[in-house]
């Protein structure tokens, strides 16, 4: 059985990749995918701690995170499709209608 460090480092790497994707990419859908990556990394941390502390509560929290992730993906993709229909673009730099 691998020690707790391994799981935490793996989770940190996935989270950092997600952060890099959000910062670097210029496409709404890829940004959303990277957010899903980060949520998965957090879930992994929760499960690892639940395992190593011998508690079930971490696993329960994961389900709430999954709920939020599903809601976020659904609403985010609806917004993306709506924006694409109006603007014909997925570039976040062009979304500055509220800027003055």
């Amino acid at each position, binding site marked *: *059985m*691998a*020690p*707790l*460090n*391994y*799981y935490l*480092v*793996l989770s*940190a*790497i*996935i*989270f*950092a*990749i*997600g*952060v*890099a*994707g959000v*910062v*670097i*990419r*210029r*496409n709404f*859908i*890829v940004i*959303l*995918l990277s957010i*899903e*990556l980060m949520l*998965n990394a957090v879930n992994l941390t929760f*499960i*690892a701690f*639940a*395992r*190593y502390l011998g508690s*079930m509560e971490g*696993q*329960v929290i994961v*389900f*709430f995170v*999954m*709920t*939020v*992730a*599903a*809601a976020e*993906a*659904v*609403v985010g*993709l*609806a*917004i*993306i*499709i*709506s924006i*694409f229909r109006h603007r*014909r*673009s*997925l570039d976040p730099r062009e979304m500055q209608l509220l800027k003055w």
Partner: protein
Amino acid sequence: MELATAIFYLVAAVTVGSAAMVAFSRNIIYSAFSLLGTFAGVAGIYVFLGADFVAAVQVLIYVGGILVLILFAVMLTHRITDVQITNRAAGRIPALVMVAVFIALLVQTIQETPWVKAKEIVYVPTTGAIGDLFLQSYLLPFELASLVLLAALIGAVVLARKEIKE
């Protein structure tokens, strides 16, 4: 023991590799499909950690639900997206440096903290205990989660429907 560690490294490598593919691939179709590898890899790690029910739910919800949804969105908006994904090089280097510093800090913190040792390794089914927690101490969040899902469902329908011009 040795075999388990080797399998862990394999699954971790697949997970990190496809995560990197998601974030850095130029083609958005490849990004979306690489997410499959990440989700499946994370489900494998859950199995390693003895969380059988969470692993099954991960496959059902993420691979079966969210991934299909994302693929639909990619197909619906595909015409323009594959042309203009090139980034300015100026914004990328500082971002990567910052992310490298971030990951170094995280890993150093993880390695230096004296974590507790694991309890004895027992692989027991977790479904019953999760159900008990949901219906006893986490009953209110559980019901609120269903409300959140309902709100997201209605919101998505309202946002994404086609407007009828009069």
